């Protein structure tokens, strides 16, 4: 469903008139495929190019090289109208839930934004739809008139999820979507995501530095380091088989619930 072919993205640093500008290769030659109804976890240290890759898929950044294929179409040579139609199947949830919502709009307006762009609904239909979405993500229907500052981080992230699923997309990218939440809320959100995935036949690209969260939700795993994918794992059960030093480091950074009980790498929830 989603295929990346040799994606490359270089950022220019500074502003030098003479001589060569400093550059940072954020993503170097990344290729990956994501099938339908699969959750791919993309892990790596901060600065390894995960988020840049996510932005390239979303069309927020243009790759210097390489192609993004989505639902059998190359996103870079589509007409604006086709692109818009295709993009409705591609949504995102960011890490910072507070800045992801416009503080001046009500929850109803925030969730209705994608609906207004793609579907012609009357205000009654729109309200009903937004209330449905609120119920799906586990919030009250009365919250529709509230403002973002009246919610906690976890609730706001639910609102962001509601906005992301409003158009019934095929693929949602979660860019560190649970990393800023406390562990208990993380589990709640992850459970919600797993449930939504089944219900709406969604695919996820779950970008995170937290292997534990990824392990909880992902079906497959890709480890990124310095802008490259260094390791693949098709079966999350075999987490111990990760070989690359970066993967091992990430694996060992997972905190054990009972630290005194030896180095049992198996994770317990």
């Amino acid at each position: 469903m989603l295929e990346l072919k040799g994606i490359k993205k270089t950022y220019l640093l500074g502003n030098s008139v003479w001589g060569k500008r400093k550059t940072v290769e954020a993503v170097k030659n990344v290729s990956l495929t994501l099938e339908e109804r699969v959750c791919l976890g993309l892990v790596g240290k901060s600065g390894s190019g995960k988020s840049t890759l996510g932005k390239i898929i979303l069309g927020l950044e243009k790759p210097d090289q390489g192609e993004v294929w989505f639902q059998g179409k190359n996103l870079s040579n589509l007409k604006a109208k086709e692109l818009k139609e295709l993009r409705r199947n591609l949504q995102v949830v960011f890490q910072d839930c507070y800045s992801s919502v416009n503080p001046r709009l009500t929850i109803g307006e925030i969730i209705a934004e994608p609906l207004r762009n793609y579907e012609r609904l009357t205000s009654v239909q729109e309200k009903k739809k937004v209330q449905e979405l609120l119920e799906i993500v586990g919030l009250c229907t009365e919250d529709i008139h509230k403002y973002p500052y009246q919610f906690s981080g976890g609730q706001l992230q639910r609102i962001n999820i509601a906005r992301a699923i409003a158009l019934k997309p095929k693929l949602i990218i979660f860019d560190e979507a649970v990393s800023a939440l406390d562990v208990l809320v993380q589990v709640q959100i992850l459970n919600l995501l797993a449930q939504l995935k089944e219900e709406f036949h969604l695919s996820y690209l779950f970008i995170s530095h937290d292997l534990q969260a990824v392990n909880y939700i992902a079906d497959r795993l890709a480890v990124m380091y310095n802008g490259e994918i260094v390791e693949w794992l098709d079966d999350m059960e075999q987490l111990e088989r990760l070989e690359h030093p970066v993967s091992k480091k990430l694996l060992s950074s997972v905190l054990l619930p009972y630290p005194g009980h030896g180095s049992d790498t198996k994770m317990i929830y």
Partner: protein
Amino acid sequence: MKNVKRKLLSHKLMMISSMIIFIMTLLALFPPFLAPNDPNLIDITHKLQGSSSKFPLGTDHLGRCILSRLIYGTRTSLGTAFLVMGLTMMISIPLGIYAGFRGGWVDYLFMRMCDILMAFPSLLLSLALIGILGPGLGNLILAMVLVHWVFYARVIRGMVLSVKEQNFILAAKVCGTPRLVIVIKHILPAIISQVVVLVFMDIGGVVLAISSFSFLGFGIQPPGAEWGMMINDSKPFFRNAPSLMLYPGMMILIVVVAFNLFGEALRDALDLRRE
């Protein structure tokens, strides 16, 4: 919004300055009803008089009522200042937002143009423009707008840049919101309070600039009443009748201070990141 209102009301300076601005606005709007005499009626027999019941603040060298001229001058000064600000904003807001939001070479070109225009002192540049266009109120307004929009457009561009990278703008892009709608619904509401504060903090300066141009004889032409011009007119009589200079000077001072205080109080009150 409630919070802002409460903060404004509890601000003492704010109350005083807004009262002054309110009175000034009344003076500017209804001078025929408030002025005791015709501001342009010349009566040499009554020249340079002190205050009396007929002329509360006395008369100038041509026997015109000073109070009436001050009141009519409010209309010229404030009206021109607001007109200059309004026209400036009509250019600066769209251009600043366009450059900031669009980015890339458009932004680069815009910034270099700003650099060039801002290399000249603004007063000097306006003066040169008026020199080319010829004196007169219309040309003064035109010259000031042409010189001032650059600065505001640049500041507004900066505001847009800081808002543009926020996640809710990115999220709006991802969920298919057209650019124009993003600007109107997300960017403009986010910067508008800052722009309003900027306008009120600077409008005092514009009043001052207009008065200085009129003082130099580039603004409104005689016999029209304007504070800066009144000061200029009263120069030769400074020793005999210093009050002639004092009254318009006080008016300029009061208005400029009131607007500056108002702007500052507004900034304090609106400085709530997440209400």
